[in-house]
């Protein structure tokens, strides 16, 4: 509107008045009585308000003005009812934010995040035994697979990562490197951003020591220097030449921390009994997965025939890479997805009930507006603006919450879950959640408008809107919503309760070894100096001896694979002198090497025979100790002591000298694996775990242990120092994450349910104030009123619980595969959660009940 228009409109008031004055005067001159004259003049003029509005519309862009007006009005209304607005926005923010974050995480994990061209063409090839076991692939098998197939563009071995000591710039630094085959980048479909990848010629035994850096390593260790190609670095005492740098977009689950890659240079003539490598491949364009699978099975059969001793029973399973990696996270992710759906539903229900309560309060306002001439369209527009404003604000807040939550998830997730730096908010999910809440907000926010268009406006104008048609059904709808909220919350709470209880049970499960008073850490001596087994053994002997002398330390031992870390060195177990039956099924057995005193230090009972001791030296008879799982499997009715078997790794024939108790290798709830222990003096070396039994708190000994080790060999890397108890709980990292997430959802649901119950009780109280007054006047005591209101809350809670319990029982079946320590119908949870919910609802109803009982009857009676 311009200045001229504004001025004219300002003057219009007076102009109209003058006009009517003139007309009145004329009428009086014509002989009418003054009153009649004025009345006639006004009638001749018409509707003054309308004239003014029409004049106004000449000067403004009507819809823009209306829109701005609506927004300002909406803002004012929302500000007036701060409690409602705050709760609504909070509900939306948490609901949308939490959902978006979790959904993005699940999306990132299950549905493909890989920054490679056509990532759905990349598959993982797993060797699957018909007994159900699956494992890695041997190098020779890999070579045959690669040579014989016609369906893959290329095949490669997933980088075999390990820690290296990088010297050459002051203190030795720990870096992580991966060895892989030349075809790796071709499988991924990417190129290095600087330089090149290694060629197949370089990937042969005795080939050159070359390395390709990862982008973050290039920046971190070399400052992103341009003079990078051709530089040499010293890793574990060996010199490598840098020939390339990978792009910053390279990211592969499990390989986020890999600083560099070197050619595997694996011996192509080794035995076929190894199963240590993971294989990936890229399908040729146009080849369907089924065809790749059948082709590989054909190759597997061919190999089975050619090499029956090693390949019998081994098939190949071809899986899309995303599924292969997420296999073990499938069940928890499904649960989380469902929880996400629930929470979104709950958010919408809560929003709906809030709006519904508010709608009733505003019917009077709407009736007034309608009677003043507002068209239905205007009222709807205005309410729409309000709802949209609310939803959009809630959505914006939700975006902030989501970003924050994603940061938290990124930091807290275990490494192998794949939630790395490239994990970000999924905009699609955010938009979806926003749309859902928008629709809810709009639908329920428009309810007052429905009533504004009815013809009989006199009742609401008088304030008697209780008797209006629709009030009763509205209350019923509201009650239904809140009961529904309670049911949903119950389901989530039950699920969370089950998962939490299960985790606690699992944490305390028997692991087969001593968990308290044990400190563990990994030692990685610099390869260059300890190339021979003798030197390596001497080092470990020295370390163990001096540690044992230290105060607070009772026993020291070494082992190559620490229990509960998931490390697996699998091999086959062939007893000498026993012909293999026709239906022989190869069982994977865990191979370990340990020092004398290991079992005692770890609290593992020696059931038969003896532990290793000094007589088990490199030159003496090769011996081994088995665990009782293996004993029961391979020697069910006889004494295993004295039997010999062929060691799958070094080919020697070892005599069994003892049987020890079985321990859990991976997680407390997974069954123990048959295992073989050889004395570490009779085995090769490299990095070893040290286990230290302490008399007091293991943590107190940590720095002493570290300095003792350093004093003997300063260049050794001391890694992952933890107590055994920490190791156990870290093995359950994924479970912790899922439990935390589910628990947060449940808490949120509980909060919403409380708000819902409180809201509806408070609201119903405010509606029945008049009735309370009458009751009190008729003799009801304060206590009676209190109980009356409380009863409503209880009834709501009970009905919600009644619906929720069967629903929860059904849904908890989804969790069955995730629960190891308790049943999915655990009584404690299914009794405790409903009690909790009802209790909380009662508490929530107490406040309005108390307020109702405190009301002054006289004021209540006067209240309309």
């Amino acid at each position: 509107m311009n200045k001229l228009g504004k001025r004219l409109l300002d003057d219009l008031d007076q102009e109209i008045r003058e006009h009517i004055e003139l007309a009145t005067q004329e009428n009086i001159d014509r002989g009418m009585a003054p009153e009649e004259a004025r009345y006639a003049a006004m009638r001749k003029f018409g509707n003054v308000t309308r004239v003014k509005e029409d004049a106004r519309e000449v000067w403004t862009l009507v819809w823009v003005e209306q829109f701005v007006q609506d927004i300002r009005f909406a803002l004012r209304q929302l500000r007036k009812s701060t409690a409602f607005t705050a709760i609504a926005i909070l509900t939306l923010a948490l609901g949308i934010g939490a959902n978006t974050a979790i959904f993005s995480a699940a999306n990132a994990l299950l549905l493909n995040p890989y920054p490679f061209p056509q990532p759905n063409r990349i598959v993982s090839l797993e060797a699957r035994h018909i007994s159900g076991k699956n494992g890695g692939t041997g190098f020779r098998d890999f070579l045959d697979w690669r040579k014989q197939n016609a369906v893959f563009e290329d095949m490669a071995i997933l980088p075999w990562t390990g820690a290296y000591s990088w010297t050459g710039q002051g203190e030795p630094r720990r870096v992580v490197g991966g060895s892989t085959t030349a075809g790796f980048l071709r499988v991924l479909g990417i190129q290095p951003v600087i330089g090149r990848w290694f060629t197949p010629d370089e990937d042969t035994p005795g080939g050159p020591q070359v390395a390709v850096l990862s982008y973050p390593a290039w920046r971190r260790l070399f400052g992103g220097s341009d003079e990078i190609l051709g530089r040499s670095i010293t890793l574990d005492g060996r010199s490598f030449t840098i020939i390339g740098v990978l792009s910053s977009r390279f990211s592969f689950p499990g390989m986020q921390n890999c600083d560099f890659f070197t050619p595997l240079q694996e011996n192509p003539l080794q035995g076929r009994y190894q199963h240590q490598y993971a294989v990936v491949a890229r399908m040729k364009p146009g080849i369907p997965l089924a065809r790749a699978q059948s082709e590989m099975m054909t190759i597997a059969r061919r190999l089975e025939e050619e090499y029956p001793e090693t390949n019998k029973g081994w098939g190949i399973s071809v899986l899309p890479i995303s599924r292969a990696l997420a296999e073990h996270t499938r069940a928890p992710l499904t649960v989380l997805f469902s929880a996400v759906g629930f929470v979104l539903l709950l958010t919408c229900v809560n929003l709906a009930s809030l709006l519904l309560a508010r709608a009733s309060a505003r019917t009077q306002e709407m009736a007034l507006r309608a009677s003043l001439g507002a068209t239905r369209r205007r009222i709807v527009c205005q309410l729409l603006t309000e709802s949209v404003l609310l939803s959009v604000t809630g959505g914006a807040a939700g975006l902030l919450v989501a970003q924050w939550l994603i940061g938290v998830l990124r930091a807290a997730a275990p490494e192998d879950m794949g939630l790395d730096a490239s994990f970000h908010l999924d905009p699609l999910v955010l938009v979806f959640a926003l749309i859902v809440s928008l629709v809810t907000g709009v639908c329920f926010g428009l309810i007052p408008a429905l009533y504004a268009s009815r013809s009989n406006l006199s009742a609401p104008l008088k304030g008697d809107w209780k008797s209006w048609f629709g009030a009763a059904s509205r209350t019923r709808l509201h009650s239904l919503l809140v009961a529904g909220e309670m049911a949903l919350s119950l389901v989530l709470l039950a699920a969370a309760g089950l998962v939490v209880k299960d985790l606690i049970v699992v944490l305390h499960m028997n692991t087969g070894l001593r968990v308290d008073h044990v400190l563990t850490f990994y030692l990685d001596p610099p390869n260059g100096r300890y190339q021979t087994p003798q030197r390596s053994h001497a080092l470990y002997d020295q370390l163990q001896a001096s540690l044992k002398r230290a105060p607070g330390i009772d026993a020291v031992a070494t082992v190559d694979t620490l229990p509960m870390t998931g490390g697996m060195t699998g091999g086959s177990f062939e007893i000498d002198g026993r012909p293999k039956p026709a239906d022989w099924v190869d069982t994977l057995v865990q191979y370990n090497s340990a020092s004398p005193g290991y079992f005692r230090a770890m609290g593992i009972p020696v059931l038969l025979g003896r532990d290793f001791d000094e007589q088990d030296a490199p030159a003496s008879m090769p011996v081994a100790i088995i665990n009782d799982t293996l004993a029961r499997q391979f020697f069910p009715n006889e004494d295993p002591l004295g039997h010999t078997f062929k060691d799958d790794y070094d080919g020697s024939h070892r005599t069994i000298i003892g049987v020890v108790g079985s321990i859990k290798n991976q997680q407390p709830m997974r069954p123990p694996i048959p295992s073989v222990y050889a004395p570490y003096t009779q085995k090769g070396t490299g990095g070893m775990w040290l286990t230290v039994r302490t008399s007091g708190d293991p943590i107190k000994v940590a720095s002493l242990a570290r300095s003792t080790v350093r004093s003997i060999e300063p260049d050794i890397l001391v890694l992952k120092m933890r107590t055994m108890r920490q190791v156990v709980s870290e093995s359950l990292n994924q479970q912790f994450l899922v439990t935390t997430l589910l628990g947060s959802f449940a808490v949120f649901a509980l909060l919403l349910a409380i708000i819902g119950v409180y809201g509806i009780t408070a609201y119903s109280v405010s509606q029945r104030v008049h009735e309370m007054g009458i009751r009190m006047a008729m003799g009801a005591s304060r206590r009676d009123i209190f109980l009356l209101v409380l009863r409503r809350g209880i009834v709501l809670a009970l009905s919600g619980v009644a619906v929720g319990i069967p629903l929860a029982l059904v849904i908890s079946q989804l969790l069955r595969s995730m629960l190891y320590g308790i049943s999915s119908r655990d009584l404690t949870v299914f009794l405790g959660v409903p009690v909790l919910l009802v209790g909380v609802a009662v508490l929530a109803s107490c406040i309005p009940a108390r307020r109702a009982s405190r009301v002054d009857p006289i004021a209540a009676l006067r209240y309309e």
Partner: protein
Amino acid sequence: MTVHLDILGEEFLASPRMSTREETERLELLQGTLDLLILRTLQWGPAHGHAIAKAIEFKSDDVLQVEQGSLYPALHRLIKRRWISAQDGTSENNRKAKFYSLTTKGRRQLAVETGKWDRLAGAIARILRPTEERK
């Protein structure tokens, strides 16, 4: 014969009300007719709102009765288009009033609009009374 004249307004403007004294038929005229009448009235000299209303009634022999309030939005519309202008002045009985007068543009527009109206009226007349005498 007196007829009711209902002038159709555009969608977002209210319809100015014009009617005759008796309630018989309703004749719907195109929008802008009121504007035309105002312009014509002002051709005889500046006038304030009330005077314009009286003039229209008078000049049409009381056939056209303007709902006087609807004049004002029309006047504003004309001002916005710069066909008329407004000045503050004093009315007959020494009261403050706004006087409206034609601008040059308005004068020109009046000729154009009158021509349009004549053509329209002629066309309608030809359709209604094809063989009878036309005015």
